[in-house]
Structures are given as C-alpha cells and as structure tokens.
C-alpha cells in the first residue's frame, strides 16, 4: 500500500529521505519487475544491469544518468520503511509512484490530483491517506478536491476505512 502524507501536516515517525539523488547513490538495483516497470514508465527505457540502464533511444547509460524523478521512484520502492520526499519529482514520476508502488511518500500540496494516462485500470490502486484506503484513482482525486478535510462519503465506491 502507498501511504501519502502532506508537508505542513502531521507526519509519521519515520526517517525522511529528502535528497533522493544521494540515497540513490547507495542503492543496488536488482532488475526486479517493479524496478523495470518504473524505468519503463518514467525513462521509457529498461533495466540493463546493476550499473546501467537502456534509455529510450536504445543507448546503454550509467544508472546515475537517470532522471531525479525515476531515481526517487526507485528509492521509494527500495525503502518501504522510510518516508520519501517527492518535491523534486515531475508529475509523471509522482503519478507513477502513487499508482504502481507501495511505500511512504511526502507531497507538497494537499489539493493536487493524480493522473496516469497509461493507467487504464483505475480500480487497481491501494493508497492510504488520513486513515482511508482508496482503491480507485478517481475516488482519491474526488476526496482531495471535494471532500478533504471533511469526512468523505463512504457510500461512494473505491474507499474504505483503514483497519
């Protein structure tokens, strides 16, 4: 499950990763399905080996040449017990992280909405915010724009209380 927190609100007692580039420097990629997915969605490339990836033009590049947004996604993926600050992420990287990964992320604005043009099954997310679990991207967006900070309408599909 992906846990979302917003800056200037109450945060969990987790270590916070602010400098994702620095954290990424100490990551060892394994080429797992999710690492490959993230590299594919954000860089339009693929995992090559622990030190390289293939970019959108088919060139083999060192992994430190990846974008900061892609590095942030890989840091989230490999640090499920830490809170990762996504302030350097572009919208495409942020939405990939929210819709495909598990972990804990810190975002800046509480009125944002999420979008993923490649994410056709909007009923396949698992995002926790304010002790509510959202299983539908549109339902999460509705909560952010029309309901929060008030109690959401629990009769609408795609939301349940966290147990």
């Amino acid at each position, binding site marked *: 499950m992906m846990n979302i927190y917003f800056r200037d609100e109450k945060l969990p007692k987790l270590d916070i990763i602010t400098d994702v580039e620095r954290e990424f420097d100490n990551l060892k990629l394994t080429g797992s399905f999710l690492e490959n997915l993230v590299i594919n969605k954000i860089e*339009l490339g693929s995992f090559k080996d622990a030190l390289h990836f293939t970019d959108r033009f088919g060139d083999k590049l060192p992994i430190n040449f990846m974008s900061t947004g*892609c590095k942030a996604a890989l840091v989230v993926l490999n640090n499920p017990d830490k809170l990762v600050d996504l302030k*350097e*992420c*572009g919208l495409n990287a942020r939405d990939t992280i929210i819709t495909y990964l598990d972990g804990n992320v810190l975002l800046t604005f509480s009125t944002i909405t999420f979008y993923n043009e490649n994410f056709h099954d909007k009923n396949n997310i698992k995002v926790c915010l304010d002790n509510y679990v959202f299983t539908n991207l549109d339902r999460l967006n509705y909560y952010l724009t029309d309901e929060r900070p008030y109690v959401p309408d629990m009769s609408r599909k795609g939301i349940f209380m966290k147990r």
Partner: protein
Amino acid sequence: MKRYKAENRVVTVEIEQPGLYVFEKESAIGKTFLCRILKRCRSYGERTDAYTYTDLTAGRSLMHYLMTTDLDLVMLDRYDMYNDKFEQDIKEIAQKAIVLIDCKNDSNLTEDAQLCFLTLQEEQLLLEVDT
C-alpha cells in the same frame, strides 16, 4: 537561434530574450543531461554554465560560479532543493542571460518566469519557449 555541442548532442536554443524561464513539471525530459552539457560547454570556453544542488552542498557559491563571467545561457538544476536561495543574484543574472530553472514547486523566483519546453531527441536537445 543558438547551438551548443557536447557529449554527441546538439543543444538548440530557440529562446531569444534574456530572462527567467521555468521548465514544465515533468521528469525525464533531459534537464539533468542539459545541465551536464552546459557545464561541459563552459569548460570548452562557451558562454554557458549550470548550477545544481551538489554544487551548493560542496560549498561552491552560486555567486562565484555564475557571476564572474558574462554568460548567455545558465541553468539551475534541482532548484527545489535550494528554493528561494540566491533570488536577487539569479534575477541579476537574468538581466543579461537566459536562465533556465528546474523547479517543480512554487517559488518566488519562478512566479514571473516564462514556461519553457525541453525536448530530448536522439541527436538533439531542443529548447523552446511557451508562445
């Protein structure tokens, strides 16, 4: 139009006027690559340069880096990590040079900046302004 060449890529700049320009809020469009190329071009004697968060953490001041020579094109990479620092210095540089800012969040500096677009192509990085 100006062109710079390094690392087997041509950077084509279709921005004419000095000023502040902020990139669209997308990842993996080639910003950090552009930063590296502009730094490399500076080492070749071109009137370009770039500044990033690791320059700051390594103790290199923006003033020393970017204000000692006349530059035509400057990029500030990862500005979210030093948001609202050097504001006046950057505005001063933008009087004479094109200043490109990678900033995903709100900042005083980018409030009045124009939106610009970077397109990463196989042999070229194309830099355009929002019209």
